[in-house]
């Protein structure tokens, strides 16, 4: 090959430029400690890093949500523990009050029940970070209030059945509250199966007596009309003891095609509805979870967990004691039932707390794993990069030395 001066110049310059380009990249990587400075450095790596960082950000968010929920759940448990202490005391006092030896002291026991009621009411209205712990999702006012003549405890806001859901995973929303309706409210449970062979337009009806806060009776009529194979229209109506209409509404119920279970009410994935008539002090939840469609029908029936809530049961007992009456065994039984319900809800809140705690630990581990995956994808092996840099630096110096030695020389120097 013929060697011209231009050829030698170009060869040296190309070599030096390649060397410097590599050194430039290495120095940028060392300075930023990232091997992906721009997406084109590694298109697949960039997509992976974006996905992992998205995941990391979500993990951080779930952990933050969990931290924010801990306080609320703790406060819920604390509130229920206070109520539980009062309920246990009430049960002891009622046993004492029914003892003939204490018949003279019934008024005193009535006073003690009044104090207990105040204490339970205070716990039921407790708030945390501006949110009423047992207010469901209604935070505009205290969930419960006692009437001015202290004859009844009334629900102070329209709806206390709201569920507070917190996102703690990609598709995991954890209910972190115990709503007032769940703990104190009246729940009517509807159960039974509609026959899948029933004709469209066929109607099934049930009735149930419901009570307001003062103990007044109302009649709830429930009517299910088959609209299609998987849809029923529920029409409910409430009338007072004089058959005056109080409230009525219609709802569309959708059932699962295969299992026959209820899946939607009015297009939302819910199985219970809250029915409230503030003007009549009527508040209860209608739980439709146990109805469905089957090849054979079972009777459609409805049952209530309580006639009146714990507050008004205590008020009734207080009034009985004030009037020198013995405590009715049914009333004591109602308090025991509430006590059991309270313990169940405390256990549920404890489970929620444990779930939050366990999920937090899992997310913490997941966070470390994601960070190490991001690190593996884009972090620079500094030691390797520096050694490479030194190697290129050495080669560059050799190139400079060689070109400085060879390029200026020609035959001219020896003539």
């Amino acid at each position, binding site marked *: 090959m013929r060697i011209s*001066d231009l050829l030698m110049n170009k060869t040296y310059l190309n070599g030096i430029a390649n060397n410097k380009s590599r050194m430039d990249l290495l120095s940028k990587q060392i300075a930023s400690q990232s091997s992906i400075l721009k*997406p084109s450095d590694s298109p697949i790596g960039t997509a992976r890093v974006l996905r992992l960082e*998205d995941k990391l950000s979500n993990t951080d968010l779930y952990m933050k949500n969990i931290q924010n929920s801990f306080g609320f759940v703790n406060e819920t448990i604390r509130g229920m523990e206070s109520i539980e202490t009062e309920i246990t005391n009430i049960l002891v006092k009622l046993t004492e009050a029914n003892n003939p030896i204490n018949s003279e002291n019934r008024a005193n026991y009535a006073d003690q029940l009044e104090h207990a009621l105040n204490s339970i009411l205070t716990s039921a209205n407790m708030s945390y970070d501006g949110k009423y712990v047992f207010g469901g999702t*209604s935070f505009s006012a205290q969930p419960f209030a006692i009437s001015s003549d202290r004859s009844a405890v009334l629900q102070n806001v329209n709806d206390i059945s709201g*569920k507070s*859901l917190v996102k703690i995973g990609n598709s995991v929303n954890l209910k972190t509250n115990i709503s007032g309706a769940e703990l104190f409210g009246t729940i009517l449970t509807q159960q039974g199966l509609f026959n899948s062979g029933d004709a469209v337009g066929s109607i099934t009806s049930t009735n149930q007596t419901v009570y307001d806060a003062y103990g007044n009776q109302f009649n709830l009529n429930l009517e299910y009309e088959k609209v299609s194979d998987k849809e029923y229209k529920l029409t409910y109506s409430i009338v007072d003891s004089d058959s005056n209409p109080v409230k009525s509404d219609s709802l569309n119920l959708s059932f699962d095609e295969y299992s026959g279970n209820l899946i939607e009410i009015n297009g939302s994935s819910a199985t219970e509805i809250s029915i409230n008539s503030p003007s009549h002090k009527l508040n209860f939840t209608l739980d439709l979870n146990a109805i469905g469609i089957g090849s054979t029908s079972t009777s459609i029936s409805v049952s209530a967990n309580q006639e009146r809530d714990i507050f008004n049961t205590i008020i009734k007992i207080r009034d009985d004691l004030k009037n020198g009456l013995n405590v009715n065994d049914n009333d004591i039984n109602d308090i025991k039932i509430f006590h059991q319900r309270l313990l169940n809800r405390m256990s549920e809140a404890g489970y929620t707390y444990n779930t939050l705690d366990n999920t937090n630990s899992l997310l913490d581990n997941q966070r470390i794993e994601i960070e190490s995956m991001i690190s593996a994808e884009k972090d620079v092996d500094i030691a390797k990069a520096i050694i490479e840099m030194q190697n290129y630096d050495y080669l560059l110096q050799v190139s400079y030395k060689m070109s400085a030695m060879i390029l200026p020389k020609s035959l001219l120097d020896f003539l």
Partner: protein
Amino acid sequence: MSLSRIFDIAQRSLGVYQRALDVTSHNIANASNPNYSRQRVNFNTEIPEINAGLIWGTGVKLDTVQRVRNQLTESQILYNNPKFSYNEKQSYLLGQIENVFSEPTTLGLSNLITGFFNSWSELSVNPNSVPLRNNVIYSAQKLASKVDTIKESFDIIRTDIVAEFKSSTTLINGYLEQIKNLNSRIFEATGRGVSPNDFLDERDRLINELSNLVNVNVSYDNNNVATISIGGVFAADGTDFVNFEIAENDGQIALRSANGGSIVALKSGELNALKDIYSSKIPEYENKLNRIVDTIITEVNNIHKTGYSIDDQPQTGIDFFEVTDSGKMIINSKILNDPNKIAVSINGTNGNGDLALRLAEISNKKVIDNLTISETYSTLISGIANHKQTADNMAATDKLVIDQLELQKASYSGVSIDEEMANVIKFQRSYEASAKLIKVADEMLQTILGMV
């Protein structure tokens, strides 16, 4: 034989070697000129005389001064040059587009999209918290601002491309005019039997520069006149040249001959890269970005308008984003003025955050061609990155080929100082010998004259 013949031979020889030294000095002077092709003197024996039954040599003659070049190598350079400049320009422009997205950093759109949806999730825990409501607005503002910045950057890149396209077109017109002028001078010199080596070098340089900008086709006639066409459209020959101009229409740019003439079929070169990025790549990326932005706006609004604000009288039917042009993200001014207008309650109770959860869930829903918003965005970024990397790799490959061809050209046509200095010595010695010959002939003549 007469003594005068020796004078004649020596005198001719002096002229030839002086000219050879001229050529050598021209070579040495251009040793560092990358566009110069070394020239070589071709000597030949002067036609001998036949006299008295004998052949009498008449000395040396300078046959031609030849431009040393390898036509095959230069054709390959001309073929590969526009490919390299196309890929290099694409790589440069795609690098600018890539930088616009600021990925993979915390300032990138990916992080801002995630932050926006996460702000809803945070709000769902404390739906009536005004600071968290403001946080949703700030996250949306940051996202909208980044979208605006990206779109503005696209506009700036587009404006720069048009400016560069026009400037390159002016350069092309200049090159073509110079080529046409050189063609006519080459024709004239060739007609007179002179080798127009330096004109040819200059014309080659211009064709080379032209090939960086556009795909050119060159053909030569017997008089060494080059006829140039660009993308199938006549551009220049020995008598004429065509001016070109930019053609802009409906978001596309093209090159056409002046005054609304034929559109050039650009296939490579810098201008084709400018055209491709302007007419194809930027609209493609912008449409994908618009689709992501429009999907966010539609999905958020569809859910948001079903919820209730936390005013004294809860309102429903409020859009979170104002619906304007495609790809434009503007937060509803009512929400900007009053964060309580953000609707996250599904039933009107002020502590219900179910809607915020549903809004946060949008980030996990496969809403664009069975992909989530983040996945679609990630596909857009990796698409740009792949285009850039492909252009980088192809430019690097083309550069290797071009470098190799340039080295071959330098090896073949480049000046070697050593070689030229050896020639200087050789021609100088020949010149000295010829001069000495005249002296010898003179002495011989003196000797004869002394005998008289």
